């Protein structure tokens, strides 16, 4: 079975300093995750 998430989030600012807002993923493709682990963060 599969769960698909589609959501709206602030666009990340490629020119801004690191951590300047915007959503970015913090996983790799094919990575095994547990429920509750962060997939990404704004």
């Amino acid at each position, binding site marked *: 079975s599969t769960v698909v998430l589609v959501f709206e989030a602030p666009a990340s600012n490629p020119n801004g300093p690191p951590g300047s807002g915007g959503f970015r993923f913090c996983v790799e493709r094919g990575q095994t*995750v547990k429920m509750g682990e962060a997939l990404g963060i*704004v």
Partner: protein
Amino acid sequence: LSEALRNTKTEWYAIPAALGIGVVGFTQIRKNSSKASEYESGGDRPEREKQIRPMGSWQVQIMSTIPLKLISYYWGRFNEIPLPVFMRAPGFKLYSWFFGVNLDEVAEPLESYRNLAEFFYRQLKPGCRPIDPRPNSVVSPADGKVLQFGEVRSGGMVEQVKGMTYSLDALLGTQGSIHSEGESPNAAALVKKKLEGKGVEPGQTTARSGKGGDSDPDAAVYQAEEEFANVNGISYTLPSLLSGAPKDTKRANSGDVSVPGTASDSLEVGREIAKGTASSWFANPDKRLFFAVIYLAPGDYHRFHSPVSWVVERRRHFAGELYSVSPWLQSRLKDLFVLNERVVLLGRWRHGMFSMTPVGATNVGSIRIHFDRELRTNTLTHNATKADEQGGFAEATYKGASALLGGYPITKGSEMGGFNLG
């Protein structure tokens, strides 16, 4: 033949009923196929009718001849057969060894699960799955493997990764139908209405953290710790409403609004909402659409939890097929997801639209949503309702859960439902 026709005496007699039924059935099938061909050719149908009807590739055509739903249904029935007590522990241990289940995390003793279906839908011991504490994180809704993730490009196409491309419209249903109906005002409108009820024009709203002084009339409009909504007995201030944390998570002694996430963020969004600039689900100018696909293997914990704090406003049940969704098959069959049975949960979180779509598969065709008693998936008899005919899905809203929020509020990490065998 001409002689036979000439010399044969004509006799009249009643035709058998079965033959009559056959004739009627044949004409009905012909009528449907002519309608389908007319549908295929397009013609002058109204725009709504030209909605997407995914047919899949030739492999899917062949697979569609296999009665997967029937197989899945009886697979579920088979797994509900109660096992003798002496067989349970060794049987589930064998299953766990084969599929890699961590038995240390299983909440109940193995003997307490009457059949494999119950063991499959097992719960875990408390504390086994800590939720990421950062307020702005999106967490995985389930155990599994991250198959895809990325940004949805303009035009609503989910990014092409390893051959998997699908359109959001086919996966979630069209966005327009949400707006055009206008029947369920979204949180933005509700917040705006409530503040306007206090005689505040959009753009004029100010909010203070801490105690606003009486001399500041705007502050009189809204005190940071003022109760804004009470949902199921839980009171919310505006900042906590937007971040999903109930009011009582505030540190009472400091008096300032300290809810998860930066208070100024939520207030800023509150202002935007009040000004009505965050009203569109998909097309907020300074936002992007992201997606992530989590694949649950047979041995994984099969209950799913909320990835963020959000308000679930409606659900769309696409009663599609039940093809396997194994990564191997996914990478070979285009548009697989938009063909399978799935339940699309649509709503809003602090940054805009949020959707979560559990997709069924042959062996796990039943999807349960705890707060949706009426949802029935993977049923042998599927009564086509008018909603089905309109968009290929049956839609229900959760307005009843909270009239003010227009949906069912759920916090990050709380259990939402799960997949059942068959």
